[in-house]
C-alpha cells in the first residue's frame, strides 16, 4: 500500500488591517516593556525610595543621554501600548461606530500630544542648574 503522510503547510495572503497591527504591537511592545517598564519601576519606585526623591535626583539621572533615551523609549512604548489597551477596552463597551471614531481620534491626538510634550521635556531638560547647586 502506498502511504500518504506528512502535514501540508500552505502560504496564504493575509490582508493586514489595524487590528492585526495592534495585536502584534501589543505583544511586541509588551516584551519591550518587560525590560523598560519593569526596570523603570524597580529602579525608580523600589530601589530608589520616593521619600528621597527630589528634582535633583531626577536631574542626576537625566544628566545622561543614556537615561534620557531610555525614558523616551519607555514613554513612547508604554503610552502607546497603554492607550491602545484603553482603546480595546472602550471599543468593547461603546457600540456606536461614530462615537468609536470620535473616541479613537481623541485618544490618538492625546497620545501624540503627550509624547511630543513629554518628549520635548526630556530632550530639552538641562540638568546643569540643579546639579551644580
Amino acid at each position, binding site marked *: *500500500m502506498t502511504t*500518504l503522510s506528512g502535514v501540508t503547510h500552505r502560504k496564504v495572503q493575509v490582508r493586514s488591517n489595524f487590528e492585526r497591527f495592534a495585536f502584534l504591537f501589543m505583544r511586541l511592545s509588551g516584551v519591550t516593556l518587560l525590560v523598560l517598564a519593569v526596570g523603570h519601576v524597580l529602579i525608580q519606585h523600589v530601589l530608589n525610595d520616593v521619600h528621597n526623591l527630589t528634582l535633583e535626583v531626577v536631574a542626576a539621572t537625566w544628566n545622561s543621554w543614556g537615561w534620557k533615551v531610555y525614558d523616551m523609549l519607555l514613554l513612547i512604548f508604554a503610552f502607546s501600548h497603554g492607550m491602545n489597551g484603553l482603546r480595546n477596552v472602550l471599543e468593547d463597551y461603546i457600540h456606536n461606530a461614530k462615537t468609536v471614531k470620535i473616541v479613537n481620534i481623541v485618544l490618538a491626538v492625546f497620545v501624540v500630544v503627550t509624547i511630543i510634550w513629554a518628549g520635548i521635556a526630556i530632550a530639552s531638560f538641562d540638568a546643569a542648574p540643579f546639579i551644580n547647586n
Partner: protein
Amino acid sequence: MAQVKIHTFDAVIVGAGGAGLMAALYASRSANVAVLSKLYPTRSHTGAAQGGIGAALANMEEDSWEWHSYDTVKGSDYLADQDAVDVLTKEAINTVVELEHMGLPFDRFPNGKISQRRFGGHMSKTTGRPVMRACHAADRTGHMILQTLYQQCIKNEVNFFDEFHVVDLIRVDDTVRGVVAIEIATGEFHIFHSKAVMFATGGWGRVWEVTSNAHSLTGDGPAIALRRGIPLQDMEFFQFHPTGIFKLGILITEGVRGEGGVLINGEGERFMGVRGYAPNVKDLASRDVVSRAIYLEIKAGRGINGQKYVHLDVTPETVNRYYEEDGEDRRIDRAYIEAKLPDIADFTRTYLGVDPVTEPMPVQPTAHYGMGGIPTDVHGRVLLDAQKNPLPGFYAAGEVACVSVHGANRLGTNSLTDLVVFGKLAGKDMANYCQTAELLPLPDGAADDVMAEFDRIRNSGGGVKTYEVRNKMQVSMTENVSVFRTEETMKQALEDLEALRDEYQKVEIQDKGKVFNSDILEAWELGCLLDTAEVTTVSGLARTESRGAHARDDYTERDDENWLMHTLYYKEGDGYRLDYKPVTLGRYEPKPRVY
C-alpha cells in the same frame, strides 16, 4: 382563519436530519423548497450516530456491493425487498464518495483513503470473516454527516424554517397540498402550501421506557400520515440494541464487544457462551440474538444483584483472561481502550461514574430503531397499498420511511446509508415532480382539524398530566412489546393503550400561552406516541411467527410459508385494517439465518 399565515413553495420537507437535509440539497437545485424542523437542524438525532456508514468502498480489503447486499438481506431475516437493497448498496459507494467531496472529514487510512472498520453482520465472502465496510469519522460519524449536510445547505441557501412543528398533512383525495405547522416561538399556525411534501421525521423510540432515542423522537410523521389515511408498514419490527446504559438507554456501540468486551450475568457467567445462546460467536452474535439473551437472563433472575441489567466488561483483566481461555494471542491494555473507545469512556464516566478500564458497565437492551414506517419505493414515493399505488407528491425518507431495505432487522451502519442514498433519490424525484406538477388550491379550512385538536388539548380539564400517561405507556410497552412478545403480553398492551387513550382525553396542560408552549406540544406528541404504540402492537399481534426483531415466545419459528410479507396497517375511523404485501425477492432465497 385570519390568524393562519400561508407560505407557498414548490416542495416542503419536514425534518432536517440526515435524510431531510440530503433531500433538501438535491431538491433545492431546481425547486423552491422549504425545510421545516421542530429542532434546529443540527440538533437532529442523526448527530448521535456513532459507528459508521456502510459502503463497499474496498479501501483496505476486497469487498463488493453484492456482498453488502447479501449481508443486508440476510440481516433483514429475508424480509427486505431485494431490489431496493441493491439500489441501497450500489448507490452507497457513490454517495459516500460524494459526502467526502462535500468535505465530510472521514478518518483516513495510511494511504489517504477513507478509513473503514468492521461491524456486526458485514462479511467478506472470500475470508468468511467480518469485512471493513463501515466508513467512519472517529466515533461520531452521524455528527459529521449532519454537520456536513447542514453546512452544504447553508452554502446553497436552502430555506429553513427552524423550530416549526408540523402537526398536519393537507391531503385532498389522492393529492397532497402542503402541511400545517406551529411556529414554536410564537405559537402561531402556518400553512405551507406546496406541490409536494416529504416526511423525514426520524424514529419513534420514545414509545419505550429505555431508549437510545432523543426526547424529540415521538413518531409525529407516522402518526400524521396514519391520520391522513396512509398506511404504516412493518411496524412490529423495532430494533432493540443489546447494550444501552442501564436505565438511561444511552447507546454503547457494538465496537466494545468487537474489541473483546464480554457480557456477564449476576452469577459471573459469560452467558452468551455458557448458557448456549450463541456457542460459537458468543458476544458477537447479531443484535436481536444478544438482546434476547440478555432479556432472558434478567427474566431468569440472573441480572446483576437480581436487577434488570447485566455487565458489559471490557476491562483488560477480564478481556485478556477470556482471550487466554479461547486460545487467542491478542492482549489489550488501558491505552488501547482509551484510544479505541474514547466516547464510550466519556459517556460511562459522565453518567455512571464508571471507568470502563477498571469496572464493568451496567447495560440492558435499549429501544433503538424502527425498521418499519411509511411505505415508499426507492424514489421515496409514498405507496398507498399492496398494489404499490403512490400518493402523488407525497414522499418519505430516512428512518420514518420503509423502503424496505432493513426488513425485520437492520444491520449496523445501514441506516446512515439509507438516509443519504434514499434522501438523495427522493430529493431528486421530488424536484422532478415539481417541474411538471401544478400547485393545487388549498381546501377551505385546511388547518381547522388540527386547530380544533389543539383547542381541545388547551381547554381539556381532566387533571391528568402528560407525563403520567406517557410513563404508563412506556412501562407497558417495555413490559409487553419489547424484545419478546406473546399474544398475552400484546393483548395486555392493547388493553393498557385503550385505557390510556381515555386518559389522554383528560390530559390537562398548565401553559395556556403561545410563546414556546412546549407543554401543549408535548401533549400533542403523546397522541402520536400512542398511535405508533398501537400500530406496533396490533401489527405484532397479527404476525404469528418470529422473525428478526419480532420475537414471540408463542411462535418461536420463522414462517416463510405464511409470513414472507410486509404488514400494512390502516387507520379506519376509530378502528383499523391490516393488509399485506409480498416481499420482493431476488438473488437470495430465504434460508435459516445462522451466524
